[in-house]
């Protein structure tokens, strides 16, 4: 096996624990970032405003660029697509693109938590899931959960 390449552990339980931990840290970071960078000159009124804030301002703070593409079905699903996700720019493998994408998956868990934390700060309850088809592209799907 090539040096420096470690496969992810097969144990799903371990991965699950890592996911929960990273996502929770991200959530806390997101809450704080939202409070810190919330706009003072305008008011975010609806969910789309908040998602746009994530795409523009938050992405600028985190990755120094804006999200490339935002898609929505106007029924609570938003897809954020970043074609040059900063953390993936210098990642590759000699095991093929799919293997590299799978290996890079854990790196998307923290930003997932951050997005969820920011949304939560503005009163939007959501589930965020990542998807990577090929590095350095990355998409985050936001599914808004109806407030009870």
């Amino acid at each position, binding site marked *: 096996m090539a040096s420096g390449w470690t496969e992810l552990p097969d144990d799903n339980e371990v991965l699950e624990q890592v996911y929960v931990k990273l996502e929770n840290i991200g959530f806390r970071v997101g809450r704080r970032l939202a409070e*810190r960078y919330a*706009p003072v000159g305008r008011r*975010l009124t609806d969910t789309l405003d908040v998602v746009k804030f994530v795409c523009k301002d938050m992405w600028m703070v985190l990755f120094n660029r804006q999200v490339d593409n935002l898609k929505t079905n106007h029924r609570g699903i938003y897809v954020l697509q970043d074609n040059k996700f900063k953390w993936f720019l210098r990642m590759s493998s000699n095991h093929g693109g799919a293997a590299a994408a799978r290996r890079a998956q854990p790196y998307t868990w923290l930003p997932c938590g951050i997005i969820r934390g920011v949304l939560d700060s503005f*009163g939007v309850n959501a589930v965020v899931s990542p998807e990577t088809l090929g590095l350095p592209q990355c998409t985050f799907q936001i599914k808004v959960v109806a407030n009870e």
Partner: protein
Amino acid sequence: MKIHCIAIINRHGNPIYLRNFDNYQEDVKYHYLAHTSCDVIEERLTTKASDLYLGLLQTVGDMVVYGYAMNTGNKIILVMSVPESLVRGAEIRDIFQQIHAAYIAVICNPFNEQRIEDRIESKKFDKAVAELGRIHAK
């Protein structure tokens, strides 16, 4: 222009901070004032105002109540005595911005383990608020 009380209410309407600068009134009076202001704030928020500063909310006896709503849903309520001279909005706005800044500093403290919805327990925040009360004691 004396500050009587500074209160913060979270998104769900729970008081997360209240500081009473008045020696003659009990806290409960200001809790009451803060919560009666919530309705007025809700009303103001629906009118698509883009400013965080909401202006004068209500006048009760010899006290005036001002409001400020953060984008994250928390509201700051400021109770002052009726000013003798003309008040400049900028001055009130400035007080709110200082409270907001102090609040952000508390939230962003990574060693602060408390949940964001909970009561603010921070010596630094207490100090910042006390300082404001001291400056505007007359």
